[in-house]
């Protein structure tokens, strides 16, 4: 198709402008992680004076990064596992059954996603403190359990929504065939429907993991020194008076790589899932 010169110029401006805007911080993160300490303390340098992997080693001893890492991993993996399982059940119900309250359920679930987190933080804080007081021991306040329960509900709404629309795309004949072969509800779901929905389930799992891995607001009040997650650990690390920026950048890179790679590999499914609700 013929493209006027104005459009070609527009394309160059957009691609170069947005390309630079996007890539410069990523470049800074990667190159600064390879700099010796002196390079990040004086005037900014575009390239390390002598590239080194030291920051990737030192970062583990400057702050208890390993502890934050384990906390984040335990909380995110557990929250993801539960969230995906619960979302599978709910999505199967929404996709395969026409029951009273189906629309209110999906509507209400999505609506909670839109409310500001601060609205839930204060009451949850109070509820958790008082649950522990009633129990007589620390169970949910500033523990991994409390964080897991909270996080798994954060990814639930979108997970249900994404999975339900994925399941809608799987022919019902498959369910019926399984029923004929003697499977009941859960048998049909786990033996026949889920294997066919594997890409959707993986996409939802990645989404749930990303949600927990990056959460900040609740982690800032619902964790203590022992249960602190990466988001708060790194945030504290970067707002100290004397910051080892090369180590902070190395740590940021290390905690980002797994999720970014997973996201980009599963781009196709995630994008389809995230946008399906509104584009339809």
């Amino acid at each position: 198709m013929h493209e006027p010169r104005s459009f070609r110029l527009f394309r160059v401006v957009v691609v170069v402008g947005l390309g630079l805007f996007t890539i410069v911080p990523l470049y800074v993160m990667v190159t600064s992680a390879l700099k010796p300490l002196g390079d990040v303390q004086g005037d900014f340098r575009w390239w390390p004076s002598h590239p080194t992997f030291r920051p990737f080693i030192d970062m583990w001893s400057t702050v208890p990064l390993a502890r934050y890492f384990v906390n984040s991993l335990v909380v995110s993996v557990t929250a993801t596992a539960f969230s995906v399982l619960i979302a599978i059940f709910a999505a199967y119900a929404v996709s395969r059954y026409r029951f009273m309250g189906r629309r209110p359920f999906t509507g209400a679930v999505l609506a909670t996603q839109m409310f500001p987190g601060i609205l839930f933080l204060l009451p949850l804080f109070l509820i958790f403190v008082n649950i522990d007081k009633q129990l007589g021991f620390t169970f949910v306040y500033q523990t991994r359990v409390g964080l897991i329960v909270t996080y798994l509900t954060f990814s639930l709404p979108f997970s249900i929504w994404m999975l339900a629309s994925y399941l809608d795309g799987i022919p019902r004949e498959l369910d019926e065939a399984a029923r004929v072969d003697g499977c009941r509800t859960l048998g049909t779901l786990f033996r026949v429907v889920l294997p066919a929905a594997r890409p959707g389930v993986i996409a939802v799992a990645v989404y749930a993991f990303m949600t927990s891995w990056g959460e900040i607001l609740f982690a800032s009040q619902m964790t203590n020194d022992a249960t602190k997650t990466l988001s708060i650990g790194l945030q504290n690390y970067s707002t100290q008076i004397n910051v080892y920026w090369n180590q902070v950048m190395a740590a940021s890179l290390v905690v980002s790589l797994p999720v970014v790679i997973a996201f980009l590999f599963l781009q196709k499914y995630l994008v389809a899932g995230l946008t399906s609700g509104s584009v339809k």
Partner: protein
Amino acid sequence: MPVTTTKPTSEAVAAGVPPRRRRRWKGATPYLLILPAVLLELLIHIVPMIVGIWMSFIQLTQFFIANWSQAPSAGLGNYKIAVDFSSPIGRALLHSFTVSCLYTLIVVGLAWLFGMSAAAVLQHGFRGRGGLRTLFLVPYALPIYAGVITWSFMFQRDNGLVNHVLVSNLHLLNDPPFWLIGNNAFVSMAVVALWRSWPFAFLMIMAGMQSIPDEVYQAAAVDGAGIWQQLRYITLGMLRPVNVVLVLMLFLWTFNDFNTPFVLFGPTPPQSADLISIHIYDNSFVNWNFGLGSAMSVLLLLFLLVVTGAYLLVTNRRSRRA
């Protein structure tokens, strides 16, 4: 595990349990399937919301946090303090609200514009399209704090990239300014938020564009519409439903943004970057006055509901007329 436990019952059904019981059981199945999700939503979202509203009517200061049943009633006291714009607390809340509005306007507007431009440019295939698309999605895929911390390094006065470019490379300024304190903090925060949120707009608009059939463009081309006219009259028109949802989502996320100011500045941001969520957070956790914080949260919720309701009403009416 569930598979093995259900097997015997299904055989029992086949063996001659009356069909009526089976049908009633079938009616309960969807409810059992959504039960865990409903319970969790109740526990973490609905109950706290009700508790939050109740909290806003009591004097929940630090003495009563661990024994909330003893907290004295405050009536509308917390609300009166929050909206008394002649007192320091009310004035600070109003200021924070204004900052949030301005921030939302700028970030949502530019995020949409960037996303739309990028999607329009990448719509017609050219070499490197897939690579660019992937690159543009990286800020969205990155954990929020990793991206914001990198920007906070770039905004450092003495060793950051921004001042290095402005002062040493381009010679636009003689004195390196502070970017993370004073009025500049607002600009920095908006730039970071824009960097993070425009890829989402891009993602949604791209998906929306794919659902516009090629024939529409071909018909327009036959009628002599150039690429700009097609963009203006076809793409924008057909994208309307996507844009309505997209702008609403961007509005809610940006207006309630807590992460960007918190990671950039810590729990107490500069005045110019005092967004509403972090303002309420500060008022609750720094002074340990949960009653006042809850009253502010409820006011925020009311504002969001009114704006969202009005927005949906206006957009629905307009699309019905069209």
